[in-house]
């Protein structure tokens, strides 16, 4: 549609004699009335120290506000997208959050939950001080106590349990970790098998299916470079990393990639897909098996990949001992194995038409090594035997040779950085059967949803129970069993809820310990969001502002609202008090790597880690910064842009030796 309007006589005449400028209607575009550069996407980093914007609440009086911009990471889902916090230089108040364009995963594009952090930090109902229960547990009465009291009372109980070798009575139950390995290190330092998670009501089913193939329990689909994408029960990657993935899925689609979605719901993803396969719940595997058959029958498999990376000979030998061992015979026998899984069978099972199954299977086969897939998560977690869905899905990647390839599906750990922490403690020597009971030897994660039942059965007790960003009373099936267990002080001796907000589980705690939101805490984040590898920093922004202003801050709660703290410092302090004289050997793991014998500070912990991130010290030096300061300034660092085909890399003798040890 042309934007060119008709000019009247007066306008034509006025333009003709130069009274008013001529409008440029070339290609239907109207010349901007403002100078170029008037609109920009985001503040450039060189202006982050003093960024000026008009005060929106005073519009139309043009009152200028000066901000200092501090990067951090979102804490409202597992994506941990990069945020920029705008701190008013005059009032010292955090005014708003926007995307950090220098974050390699989210690239400045964030969902509504990121900017909503401002609602959380200014929530008038938030808990601002540590609270201790008064009266019976669950009675809803609280008194304010100091962090000192909290630390001393909890530390004394833990110390007693450890001294009495009741190490399994200490449990840390986490919903959303939001950090890389900090707590695993703490629990190992204490020598307890105390980690429990929510994973068995979430991703464990699908993880199992993947892990049985190659040991990697999650896949990183390289959506950006894929030619064909198959997503099962994923609405634009509904779970982890949904925003970084969603933007790459859509970019990919915009450049011609075809998308198929298998989901019982017409989800957002399905609505954007080229093929929506609305299977009956739990029948996804039938469709996947039929697709495998089509790929085999029509010769769309990647022979070179299968020859190199599949133990086809071992399989022939085991299942078809009378057959001569050759690749051709392997394919032959495999076809026989899959003969029953016809597209018609798939249609009968799943309701997806034969034509759709064939059509999608052929596109997967043609995409070859650029076939990307994901199962996140309901098909696997919501159906008995759902782990087989992930297992069948991975088979399509195997057949097409699209594992670890550009545009394929990558093992998650290739694209995720594991920080090198100071003085790592040895693994604990305990096995906690409340988490991993012996009758479930194949449990891929803790049998967390059974915990209250185990306690009720008298299989054990918990002396100190930490819940963190975890609300099983509300989110787990059978919430009332959790209430029963949490009410019973014989079964759970002490319950400390580490949480930024009130919740149903915190209601049954002895201590409610307010922990910070995205802009009020330290964490390291590194996730498999694309083919690169990156690390990001979550930091308490007002503490960073204080540091920039030359103000000394010892603990993060000094700059947070009220006495809201952060876990990192809490655990360091708690560990120090569990072992006040060093006799338990715990304190050794919380000593500064830079100041022998002194207690480690949170800054030193991150300094140590960032100094060991490959490429970061060099990048920081180019900016004239230390690695820690670089992360404080920019919030994120991409160490590799592409991590692909690691399986094709020849290892050195040394690497081979290290991989075995």
């Amino acid at each position: 549609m042309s934007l060119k309007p008709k000019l009247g006589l007066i306008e034509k005449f006025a333009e003709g004699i130069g009274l008013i400028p001529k409008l440029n209607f070339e290609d239907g575009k109207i010349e901007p009335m403002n100078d170029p550069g008037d609109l920009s996407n985001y503040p450039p980093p060189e202006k982050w120290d003093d960024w000026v914007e008009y005060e929106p609440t005073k519009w139309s009086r043009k009152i200028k506000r000066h901000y200092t911009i501090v990067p951090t990471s979102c804490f409202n889902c597992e994506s941990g997208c990069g945020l920029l916090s705008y701190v008013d230089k005059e009032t010292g108040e955090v005014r708003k959050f926007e995307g950090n364009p220098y974050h390699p995963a989210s690239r400045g594009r964030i969902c509504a939950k990121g900017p909503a952090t401002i609602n959380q930090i200014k929530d008038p109902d938030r808990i601002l001080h540590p609270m201790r229960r008064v009266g019976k547990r669950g009675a809803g009465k609280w008194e304010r106590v100091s962090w000192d009291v909290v630390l001393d009372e909890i530390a004394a109980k833990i110390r007693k349990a450890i001294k009495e070798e009741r190490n399994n009575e200490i449990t840390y139950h986490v919903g959303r970790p939001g950090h890389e390995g900090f707590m695993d290190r703490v629990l190992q330092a204490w020598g307890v098998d105390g980690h429990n998670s929510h994973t068995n009501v979430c991703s464990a089913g699908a993880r199992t299916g993947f892990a049985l193939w190659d040991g990697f329990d999650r896949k990183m689909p390289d959506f950006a470079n894929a030619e064909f994408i198959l997503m099962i029960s994923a609405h634009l990657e509904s779970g982890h990393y949904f925003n970084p993935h969603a933007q790459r899925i859509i970019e990919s689609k915009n450049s011609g990639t075809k998308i198929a979605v298998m989901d019982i719901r017409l989800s957002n993803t399905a609505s954007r897909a080229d093929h929506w396969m609305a299977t009956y719940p739990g029948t996804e595997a039938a469709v996947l098996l039929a697709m495998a058959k089509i790929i085999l029958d029509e010769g769309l498999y990647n022979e070179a990949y299968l020859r190199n990376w599949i133990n086809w000979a071992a399989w022939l030998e085991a299942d078809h001992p009378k057959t001569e061992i050759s690749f051709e015979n392997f394919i032959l026998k495999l076809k026989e194995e899959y003969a029953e899984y016809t597209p018609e069978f798939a249609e009968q099972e799943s309701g997806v038409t034969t034509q759709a199954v064939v059509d999608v299977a052929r596109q997967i086969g043609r995409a070859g090594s650029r076939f990307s897939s994901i199962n996140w998560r309901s098909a696997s977690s919501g159906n008995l035997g759902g782990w087989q869905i992930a297992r069948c899905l991975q088979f399509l990647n195997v057949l097409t040779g699209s594992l670890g390839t550009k545009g394929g599906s990558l093992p998650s750990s290739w694209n995720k950085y594991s920080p090198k922490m100071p003085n790592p403690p040895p693994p604990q020597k305990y096995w906690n059967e409340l988490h991993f009971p012996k009758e479930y030897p194949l449990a891929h994660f803790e049998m967390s949803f059974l915990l209250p039942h185990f306690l009720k059965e008298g299989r054990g007790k918990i002396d100190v129970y930490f819940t963190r960003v975890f609300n099983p009373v509300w989110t787990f099936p059978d919430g009332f069993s959790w209430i029963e267990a949490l009410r019973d002080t014989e079964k759970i001796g002490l319950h400390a809820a580490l949480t930024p907000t009130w919740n149903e589980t915190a209601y049954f705690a002895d201590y409610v310990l307010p922990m910070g939101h995205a802009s009020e805490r330290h964490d390291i984040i590194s996730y498999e969001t694309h083919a690169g590898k990156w690390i990001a920093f979550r930091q308490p922004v007002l503490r960073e502002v204080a540091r920039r202003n030359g103000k000394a801050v010892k603990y993060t709660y000094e700059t947070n609202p009220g006495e809201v703290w952060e876990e990192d410092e809490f655990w360091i302090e708690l560990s120090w008090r569990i072992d006040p004289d060093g006799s338990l050997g715990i304190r050794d793991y919380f000593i500064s790597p830079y100041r022998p014998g002194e207690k480690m500070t949170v800054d030193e912990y991150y300094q140590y880690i960032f100094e060991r991130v490959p490429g970061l010290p060099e990048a920081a030096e180019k900016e004239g910064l230390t690695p820690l300061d670089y992360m404080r300034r920019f919030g994120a660092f991409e160490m590799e842009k592409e991590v692909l085909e690691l399986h094709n890399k020849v290892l050195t003798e040394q690497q081979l030796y290290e991989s075995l040890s």
Partner: protein
Amino acid sequence: MFRPLKKSFNLKKESKIDTDIKQTARRVYDAPNKGILWDWEVAGYIFTKAIAAGIIAFPFLFQMTGLVKVADSVLFTVAISSLLFLGLTGILLIKDLDQPKRFLYVLLRPNWTSWLVKGGYTITAFGGLVTLWCVLKYFDFPIIADLIVWPILILSVLLAIYTAFLFGQAKGRDFWQSPLLSLHMLLHSVVGGSAALLAASMFLPALMPLVPLLKEILIWSLLIQLLSFAAEFLSSHPTEDANKAAHMITHGTFRTAFWGGVVLLGNAIPLLLLIGKLRIAGCSRGLSFWY
């Protein structure tokens, strides 16, 4: 302070969509920066416009109808004065625009459905004809000059009342959707013009023959104006916002300016002063003029 980033830093790769957005990004509207309430420029422009129209209309009308014999020097003086007030009106109009630099666009990229444009052309035409009349008079072409007096008078009425149609087009301004608004505007001009001429008569004896009639006009126009205020402010309005605006004027922020300035100083006191000195004969003449 930050130093500029070096090239080594990992900037995000800009997608084609980003580039397209940047290339095509343009402002499509100008955010208003005048606030919710009209500022003094609008009130000032209504004032100067009312005088510009009224000050010329009465002497010209008297002359053309033969009601009063008006000296040429008076006609010439009021024409020049009208142009001066018209000039002030123009300056205030331009100053009130969000983008004063673009004031020519109003006239030269006209949107003919807008009374801003129609009003702009009314002002231009009125100013042009009055100037032409002055030129003709100066170079002694009285017959041709007389020919354009009627168009000037018609335009002076339009000049006085077009703002009512302009405010009417501002649909969000509920209070100004009143059907009485054009009457208000006309009365402004009548009051403004006659009062200005009466004030000027203290310094210009040549105006004295006009004074009796002007006094009567002023009295009656003030009376009608007060009645119209009563109709406007003492009755309820069709919308809640209009009621609120009326309440704001009579009881809120502007109550002192309204009761003290407009009603008392601007209308009631002048009316009482005028009535005190009024002769009965004058009154009957006034009645005959208005009815």
